[in-house]
């Protein structure tokens, strides 16, 4: 009896003498932006605001370089060492959710009601992640160049057809003024390939996987439409309309700005640099329509909660805090990407109505197509990357697509369908 009272007394006095600082629980947050000072500043600002606005939670930031981020997370997951909150690239989320890294994110519906579809991550009907921005891709062009060569300027409602696009490239090549008519960014051998080029495949009518069942890629990746895409893709390099896989990174960075390339298929994160160089002459053209509608990629970095986190309420509170319009606008102004809501867009300098990059918002909303939302995507991505590389280098189109299809189907089977039911 006496010891119990003594113990209780000690515990009570300990908690009473503990200052308010000790009452705030630490939440660890991992972010992929190490080395990127502007993103860091904004994120740190959000964290400070959040920590200052309440006393229950204290968010602590750990940054990782982007190139190594996914590997670090995987290693940490293996070791059971994940943080409370982490960010992830949209298409990877289903794989991480299925692998057990994440737990569902409990946010009130109305908070994300007007978010761009590419900024919301759902898996098996549950919300797992939400992002502060989306990324969009467009054809960067110069009005003067197009007019000089009598090429019709496409609009969002009337994009180029696939044939018009290829014709335009050939016309530009014939002028002899450019090393290549268009820069596709082949030197960036990363997630850029599937992100930037699978929309072309989808515009032809093919796809990376059958989105009805999500259990096979047969006919989607190696059907007639896909083969048509493959042959068109190969022709781009055979006819020297675009630099191929051995493009040097320096050419990719400065080629369009220096006038080496007439057009560039690039994302809005370099739009600001291009705007500075070309000003009013710069146009952002929508993707061409190869028969199945014009498409661009969607889905960028989003925040989620790790499965092992002891404080999902705190983590959710932080994420809810971070997705306020004012922060969406801050990020957008800093890194040039599309803010997740139209209301936030109005607060930005680039994306408000009539702003120089406003067109990207519409592109995202109208043409954005998510990469397949399946855990298999972690395997599909490098596989498709190899398909694009090999076909660009001259491999047989049908065989390459077949091999990739087989590999993907094999992988899906090996993983028992990744949680999709066999029907």
């Amino acid at each position, binding site marked *: 009896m006496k010891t119990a009272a003594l113990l209780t007394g000690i515990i009570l006095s300990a908690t009473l003498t503990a200052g308010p600082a000790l009452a705030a629980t630490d939440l660890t947050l991992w972010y992929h932006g190490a080395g990127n*000072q502007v993103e860091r500043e904004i994120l740190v600002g959000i964290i400070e605001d959040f920590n200052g606005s309440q006393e229950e939670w204290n968010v602590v930031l750990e940054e990782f*370089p982007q190139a190594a981020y996914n590997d670090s997370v995987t290693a940490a997951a293996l*070791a059971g060492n994940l943080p409370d909150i982490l960010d992830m690239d949209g298409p990877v989320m289903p794989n991480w959710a299925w692998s057990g890294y994440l737990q569902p994110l409990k946010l009130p519906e109305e908070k994300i009601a007007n978010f761009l579809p590419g900024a919301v991550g759902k898996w098996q009907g549950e919300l797992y992640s939400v992002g502060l921005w989306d990324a969009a891709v467009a054809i960067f062009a110069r009005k003067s160049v197009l007019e000089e060569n009598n090429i019709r300027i496409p609009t969002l409602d009337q994009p180029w057809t696939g044939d018009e696009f290829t014709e335009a490239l050939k016309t530009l090549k014939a002028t002899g003024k450019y090393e290549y008519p268009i820069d596709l960014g082949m030197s960036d051998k990363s997630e850029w390939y599937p992100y930037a080029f699978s929309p072309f495949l989808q515009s032809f009518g093919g796809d990376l996987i059958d989105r009805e069942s999500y259990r096979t890629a047969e006919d989607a990746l190696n059907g007639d439409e896909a083969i048509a895409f493959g042959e068109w893709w190969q022709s781009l390099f055979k006819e020297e309309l675009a630099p191929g896989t051995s493009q040097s990174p320096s050419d990719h960075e400065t080629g369009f700005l220096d006038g080496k390339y007439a057009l560039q298929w690039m994302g809005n994160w370099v739009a600001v640099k291009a705007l500075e160089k070309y000003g009013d002459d710069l146009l952002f053209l929508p993707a061409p329509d190869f028969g199945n509608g014009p498409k661009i990629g969607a889905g960028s970095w989003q925040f989620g909660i790790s499965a092992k986190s002891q404080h999902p309420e705190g983590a959710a509170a932080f994420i809810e805090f971070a997705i306020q319009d004012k922060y969406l606008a801050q990020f957008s102004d800093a890194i040039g990407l599309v803010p997740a809501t139209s209301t936030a867009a109005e607060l930005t300098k680039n994306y408000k109505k009539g702003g120089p990059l406003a067109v990207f918002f519409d592109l995202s909303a109208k043409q954005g197509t998510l990469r397949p939302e399946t855990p298999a995507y972690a395997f599909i991505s490098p596989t498709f990357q190899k398909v694009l590389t090999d076909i660009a280098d001259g491999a047989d189109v049908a065989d390459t697509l077949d091999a990739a299809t087989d590999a993907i189907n094999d992988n899906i089977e090996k993983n028992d369908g990744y949680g999709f039911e066999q029907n």
Partner: protein
Amino acid sequence: MAQAGTKRSATSLFVRYTVLILIALVFVFPLVFMVMSSLKPDAQLLRDTASIRAFMPVGDISLDNYFAAFRRAPIMLFVFNSVLVTGLTVAGALLVGSLAAFAFTFMNWHGRDVIFTMILATLILPFETIAIPLLLQVNNLPWVTTEGLVTGWLNSYHVQVIPWIGDGLTIFLFVQYFKDLPKELIDAARIDGASWLQIYWRVIMPISGPVVATAAILKFLIMYSQQYLWPLLVTQSEEYRPVMVGLQYFFQLNVAWGEVMAYLSIITVPVLVFYLFLQRAFISSIASTGLKG
């Protein structure tokens, strides 16, 4: 007679030096390219790569890239981490490896040959092939900290050091060297009643300058310059990251090549210093080791 001799040796001297210098150019040009590029702004740097200007400090020369690099990443922290981890590992490997090599070369014991072959066999394994199993293993090992016993070695210095102390290559280098030493030294010391440890420390190691230098240089290089995957897997916080992981900080959405070159130039300094320092010790040991002939 004497005149013809000096004329011949003058031309041959000229030829020798020309050959040496030409070859030196081949070996040094990427380094020159790296340092020159670190002084130029990005746009100029990229354009200069197409011509001889890549090697010349022309155009807009400044230290801006260096300042920018320091703002972008905690470079001195990374260098400190790398030097610390590498230094500890090299010291450990030299000690442990030379002890083992001594035992393999000069002593006879059960299972010696089998174990030696097994150790040599480990040289075959590239690290990438055991990375994941090692990660899983290391995560379940206990460690003593100020808070008591904890499980898991991740995110620390010791996880970057301890797995690499035992190393077949170091042992192999020492064994090759020890094999050529005269056995009379050992026999003489045994007759004098010295213990094996004493022989190791007092007789053999003092004359092992060259191999110590070679093994140290090689181990340092491997740990400092080549290690990337392991630190990537096992360090989660910035405070433990080494220089090669830090390199990734510069490859964000827009690669700042000038800063990359500046960063590379900075992190090459410790290695060069270590090498030059050891090279003098290495050369002088060879000159003074009048063992043979």
